[in-house]
């Protein structure tokens, strides 16, 4: 079975199982509640005593923040699973075997390292683009649309809390789960195969003519040039960019969102955003470099360019916050 199918099956199985289980439990709960009388209080759902993070908020604000807690836990669990499975995909024996089959003639540890990195750079684009986009849209869905927005917007909560109370926890969840998943994948690599990256020193010393026509040397050169910290940093900045784009789009004024031309422009932007992650064949290299998009093994973009997507994302989120304050019809 190909490594891709195994990874995708592993990634999809728990959420699907979770959804089925939730459906069964939800039906049972509804059945149990239907038999309950109206007379008892509407369940003992008083808010728990505030912990360290929530102490500074009043009762109403905590009610709003805690309402999102369950959703956030589900998002964190799903993201952690998706990130970890996908980042570890290159560690599957079939993935490593594929590296050798594709003509990479390194040693055993080099094959493992190559497989691990190529999985993260070339196969995880969906992970870094789609998931943060959906997470961003989901985070602000109930405050950025006309009908679902009405309930929270007519409760006694400040507009800034309405927005930041959704955005900051979601953003923190995405970034934290990404970092945890990256560390887990490195830990798993170490546990399963040992410190394979140490063998790169040997590769560097045996590499006679970097950049020559020799295909094996080229692959080895690319492997040596690849920067692991920047791969992960690029994953973080891409996630941040996807998240902030979705949040800003959701917070556009209703009058603007109703314009059909905007729908077309957003679709084009989304397609462009997606294709830029797939391969440098689709996105101009300069564009990818400026946005710190690092999707192929080889020389990394300079660290300073990581500031570009970070600044763009910050600007987009701040703009969305402003729009959220004015989100009225």
């Amino acid at each position, binding site marked *: 079975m190909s490594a891709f199918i195994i990874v995708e099956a592993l990634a999809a199985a728990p959420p699907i199982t979770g959804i089925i289980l939730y459906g069964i439990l939800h039906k049972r709960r509804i059945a149990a509640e239907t038999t309950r009388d*109206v007379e008892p209080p*509407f369940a003992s759902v008083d808010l728990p005593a505030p912990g360290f993070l929530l102490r500074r908020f009043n009762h109403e604000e905590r009610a709003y923040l805690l309402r999102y807690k369950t959703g956030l836990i589900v998002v964190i669990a799903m993201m952690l699973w998706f990130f970890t499975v996908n980042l570890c995909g290159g560690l599957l024996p079939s993935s490593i075997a594929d590296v050798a089959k594709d003509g990479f003639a390194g040693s055993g540890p080099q094959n493992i390292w190559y497989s691990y990195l190529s999985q993260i750079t070339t196969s995880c684009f969906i992970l870094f683009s789609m998931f943060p986009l959906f997470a961003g849209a989901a985070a602000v869905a109930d405050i950025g649309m006309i009908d679902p927005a009405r309930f929270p917007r*007519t409760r006694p909560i400040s507009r800034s809390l309405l927005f930041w109370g959704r955005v900051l926890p979601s953003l923190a969840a995405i970034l934290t789960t990404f970092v945890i998943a990256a560390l887990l994948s490195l830990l798993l690599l170490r546990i399963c195969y040992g410190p394979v990256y140490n063998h790169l020193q040997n590769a560097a010393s045996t590499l006679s003519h970097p950049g020559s026509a020799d295909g094996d040397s080229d692959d080895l050169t690319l492997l040596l040039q690849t920067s692991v910290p920047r791969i992960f940093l690029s994953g973080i900045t891409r996630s941040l960019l996807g998240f902030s784009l979705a949040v800003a789009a959701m917070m556009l004024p209703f009058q603007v969102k109703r314009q059909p031309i905007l729908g077309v422009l957003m679709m084009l932007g989304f397609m462009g955003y997606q294709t830029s992650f797939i391969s440098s064949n689709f996105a101009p290299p300069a564009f990818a470099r400026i946005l710190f998009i690092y999707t192929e093994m080889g020389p990394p973009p300079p660290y300073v360019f990581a500031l570009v997507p970070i600044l763009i994302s910050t600007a987009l989120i701040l703009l969305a916050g402003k729009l959220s304050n004015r989100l009225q019809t």
Partner: protein
Amino acid sequence: MKTFAIQTDSLVKTYGFGSKQIRAVDGLSLNVPEGSIYGLLGRNSSGKTTTIRMAMGLARPTSGEIKVFDLNPTDDPERIRVLRQVGYVPEDKMLVGLSPRRLLELNRNFYPDTWSDELARKVVKRLELPLDTTFMKLSLGNKTKSALAMAIAQRSRLLILDEPTTGLDPIALDELLRLLVEDCTADGRTIFLSSHQLAEIEQIADHIGILDRGKILLEGPLDDIRSSFRRLTVTGSALPSNGPSILSTKRQPHATQYVIQRDPDAFASKLASNGATIVESAPLSLSEIFIELCRTAEGREENASEVLA
């Protein structure tokens, strides 16, 4: 001193730009006394919901001023203080995709100082609201009941109900009106409701505002309004066709019918002193007053357009 739950002054709200601009509310000045049951009446697209949305901080006035308990509901932090004191039932009753039980449990936490479980149970029981039906499966009537239960149990100082009778059957409607009068006006609390259902409003409201095309046509205590409007059927010669107290005049073959909008007794005495005979003097129902006012306003508007053309 008379205090007001809602006050607007020359309030304007426009949507769109250029030739597509719509003036939803047009220089509205409204006074909703605290402790009253105020019925805001108007035809479709007369600006009722827009006015309510501005009172709830969901829409920003283009110009003019709106105050709720003398606070500005448009911007924080005053907006938060307003929302702490207001229970709201929106026009389409779309709130959160939860079962009524979950919705009530959720809403309770936003109003810890005023919420009453007892009142929530009472409303649920009297309106026969199914508590555990999922939101998607709730009928329109049950969505309305759900929104009402939530807003009423808040025991807010002000209850804003936008078309609160949507989808309710006659029994539920009757129960709702009783609940509003019995349980929602205690301690000087105010009910501000908009509706097309004039008969129901007439049963419970003590103050009325009639809105048409974003403008207020009439406002005041219902009893005063009822006593100042009268339909007079008169015979005689040299009868006036217009005047300050005449809202409309209808010439018939053998008589003239007037709808009088202020001081009908004085008007009748004046006609009698000029030799006219008052054949009939009948009070108008709220529905008749509403229709007469809207038609007259429409006629004036058309005449003004013709003059301009």
